[in-house]
């Protein structure tokens, strides 16, 4: 069988790559994609722990299912806001939307 560490390391790498994307990208849509990567890492972690360490109750599987659902809903919600901002400003870049100072 595959050792549990393999999956945990993989999810950590995916999470870190996603974080890199969030920090380095300017386009709001690309940031959203990077957040999706981070959440995919989270889901892998939950499922790993569920199938290796919680085989009786497998709550982690249910958790992962909800993570996927919430992530999808978040994309829809955020895209609505991106579209609206694009209509108002003609840009989808986060740092060009800067009438508020950080």
């Amino acid at each position, binding site marked *: *069988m*595959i*050792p*549990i560490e*393999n*999956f945990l*390391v*993989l999810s*950590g*790498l*995916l*999470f*870190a*790559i996603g*974080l*890199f*994307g969030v*920090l*380095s*990208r*300017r*386009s709001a*849509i*690309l940031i*959203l*994609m*990077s957040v*999706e*990567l981070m959440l*995919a890492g989270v*889901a*892998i972690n939950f*499922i*790993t722990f*569920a*199938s*290796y*360490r919680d*085989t009786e109750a*497998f709550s982690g*599987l249910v958790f*992962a*299912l*909800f993570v*996927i659902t*919430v992530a*999808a*809903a978040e994309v*829809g*919600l955020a*895209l*609505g*806001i*991106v*579209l*609206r901002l*694009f*209509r108002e400003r003609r840009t*989808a870049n986060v*740092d060009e939307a800067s009438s508020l100072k950080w």
Partner: protein
Amino acid sequence: MFDRLPLPSQFDRTIISGGTVLALGATPVLVVLAALLVVDRISAPEFVFFLAASVLLAGAAGVVLMKNIVHAALCLVVTLLGVAAIYLLLLTEFLALVQVLVYGGGVVILLLFGLMMTNAQDDPVVTDGSQKPFAFGVAALIAGVFIALVLDAHWGSPEASIVPFRDFGARLFRDFSLPVVIVAVLLDIAFTGAFVNARRAEADSAARGEARS
């Protein structure tokens, strides 16, 4: 060279160059893994795992590095399919199915729509912020810490086991009945949010029209 092919250029340029890159990258990985498999250093499931993991990580790197947004979105598809393969290796067919349906079928289409509406051009290229080295440092640090801590732990050597589909359904809809209701409300809220922000243009123009007449 692409111009001589009897095909519309944009589309297959992506496919051909993408396929070439994929083949060039995948071949050495496959060779190394096959060699390891032959000399019995890794088992067959591990062979599949490392294959899926390298595809997945390559895709993820593409998502965060590609200059062309559409290419980045296509890389996201690759990554999410790789994640579905990982779910299969974790013996959860149902979640793998959900992953493919929700992400491949829904989220990526939605993201591509968003791209087309905000970057309406054939070759949407983006520039990244100047903080790339900083971002890389932070991400590398976090990845290092995560991996060190995970490998430092002794998880024992547990075995994965298959969850019967019937049990999963009972767990979801009986034991966790309330979260299912809460998530339904959550989807309503998200729908409302997408709706109120996307509809604004018509609402505003309608209001302006009324004011004029």
